[in-house]
């Protein structure tokens, strides 16, 4: 292979460069560039603490792009349908109807759970947020393959945009839920509402951690997306959404470990907190018709887990640590996204 002396050739090219840079605009540009500091190309470096804040800063400086990406996801979803965003209401309302009729009435859950419709819909709403964040963000990097291969933008933006659009749909469902609560005339205007807020914060925290982690791993191991589907199905039934916490405790009375294992799932704590905030009927005794012997059927208030406040705090702090770990994993893996996709 012939090698040439680059130094010699370099001089030739430099003579030609001078001929180009003659205009004052060009000289001004170069003078300005001369004063700029050098920055590393691509993502911020991979140190454990500084890298995390570098990543956060990178996302913050691109927040208008994040905003546009969220809008794009929302706009593109119902672009050519004539009903558009009405479809966002149809799915959760259908689920509510199915669970209310099939499980509430036919299987009889509504006989032991007061205001079953509100109960099941609050569970479905907060679970829907978690479910959509994870399902859509897992696919987010692959779905934006074209962009990732061609342009550098902080890649965290894509899973974050999925979270943003999930939050929008959650907002729509919240409107339905609040309307239903108002219709049944039991607006929970109490400090318990703060539990609902805490639940949303926890779901977003865990959603962010899992979104970063799963979206990055899914690039390298495509099985993740199918595993996630199955895991979400299992977790849905492992959380007190269609059945109540009281029913779990009935079993837990004989096997105490059942309750502790059940509560170890952070989503259980979040869902319970959300129900405590939104489902007022669960926190006071209610009469539901008559029992077989003709006595009034009194349902005792739900025995919410002990130290729920403290549990939520711990769950939240653990979630924050997970976000940090997930961001570091993401930063490590994203360097090769462009080829692995």
């Amino acid at each position, binding site marked *: 292979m012939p090698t040439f002396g680059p130094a010699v050739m370099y001089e030739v090219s430099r003579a030609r460069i001078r001929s180009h840079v003659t205009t004052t605009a*060009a000289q001004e540009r170069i003078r300005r*560039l001369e004063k700029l500091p050098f920055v590393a190309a691509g993502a911020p470096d991979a140190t454990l603490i500084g890298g995390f804040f570098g990543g956060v800063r990178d996302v913050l400086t691109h927040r208008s792009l994040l905003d546009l990406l969220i809008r794009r996801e929302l706009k*593109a979803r119902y672009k050519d349908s004539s009903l558009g965003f009405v479809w966002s209401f149809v799915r959760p309302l259908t689920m509510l109807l199915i669970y209310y009729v099939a499980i509430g009435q036919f299987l009889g859950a509504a006989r032991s759970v007061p205001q079953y419709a509100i109960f099941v819909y609050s569970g479905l709403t907060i679970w829907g947020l978690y479910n959509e964040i994870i399902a859509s963000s897992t696919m987010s990097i692959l779905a934006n393959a074209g962009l990732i291969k061609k342009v550098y933008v902080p890649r965290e933006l894509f899973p974050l945009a999925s979270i943003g659009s999930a939050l929008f749909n959650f907002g729509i469902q919240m409107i339905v839920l609040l309307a239903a609560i108002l219709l049944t005339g039991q607006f929970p205007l109490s400090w318990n509402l703060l539990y609902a807020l805490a639940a949303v914060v926890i779901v977003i925290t865990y959603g962010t951690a899992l979104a970063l982690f799963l979206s990055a791993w899914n690039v390298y*191991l495509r099985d993740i997306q199918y595993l996630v589907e199955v895991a979400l199905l299992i977790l849905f039934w492992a959380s007190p959404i269609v059945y109540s916490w009281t029913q779990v405790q009935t079993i837990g009375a004989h096997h105490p470990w059942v309750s502790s294992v059940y509560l170890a799932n952070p989503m259980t704590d979040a869902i319970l907190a959300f129900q405590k905030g939104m489902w007022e009927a669960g926190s006071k005794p209610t009469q539901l018709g008559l029992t077989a012997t003709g006595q009034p059927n009194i349902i005792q208030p739900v025995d919410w887990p002990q130290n729920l406040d403290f549990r939520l705090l711990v769950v939240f702090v653990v979630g924050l640590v997970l976000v940090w770990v997930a961001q570091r994993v993401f930063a490590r893996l994203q360097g090769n996204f*462009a080829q692995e996709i």
Partner: protein
Amino acid sequence: MSNVPVITMNQVSKRFIIRKEKSLKERLVNFGRSRKHKEDFWALRGIDLDIEAGTTVGLIGANGSGKSTLLKVIGGIIQPTDGSVRRRGQLAALLELGAGFHPDLTGRENVFLNGAILGLTQKQIEGYFDSIVEFSEIPDFIDTQVKFYSSGMYVRLAFAIAIHVDPDVLLVDEVLAVGDEPFQKKCLDKIKEFQQEGRTIVLVTHDLQTVQDMCDRAIVLSHGQVIFDGDSVKGVETLRASF
């Protein structure tokens, strides 16, 4: 005066690991024997380069010589395995025109989205919007979904956005041969204007004539290494001799 580097690369290497299996099942089945299913491939090896402000540099080489990888490393799209790439000034990459277009959105919506992807703020895009549409010459279709665009219209709009980014460094990968002849000429004129304005252009192309005509400097790559760095006419000769 012109001796101001905007990109400096220090011992940049990039190793690709070529895996022959992707799914969990294949990995489990081949666990322990996975060495056999991996192959190292050095796309770049020990690249040391400085690119000065105001120059137009052509990266040339045979297929698979690493020139597109080098361009992606400069653009930050791929992280090098070793070494560091540092740069300054606003960078724009014309790696593939319209990469950020969403087919279901209208031309107008895509201008805003793509502009933001290339680093413009909302305000800037609003200010440039008329000029972008004018350059693309498709004002009648700006509110049509881009999936109905012809490929020429698509590329026109994408190029029009990219040149409004006001880059100090422009990375171009094989995208100049787009559109019909008048539009191609318009693009080349724009690139020449960019050169006059002291912008730095790094160009990857197989069109050696373009390199000879436009570039101040050619970097010839072969198997991930620089085999020639200097005058573009000599660079093209070197590449032709190595074929």
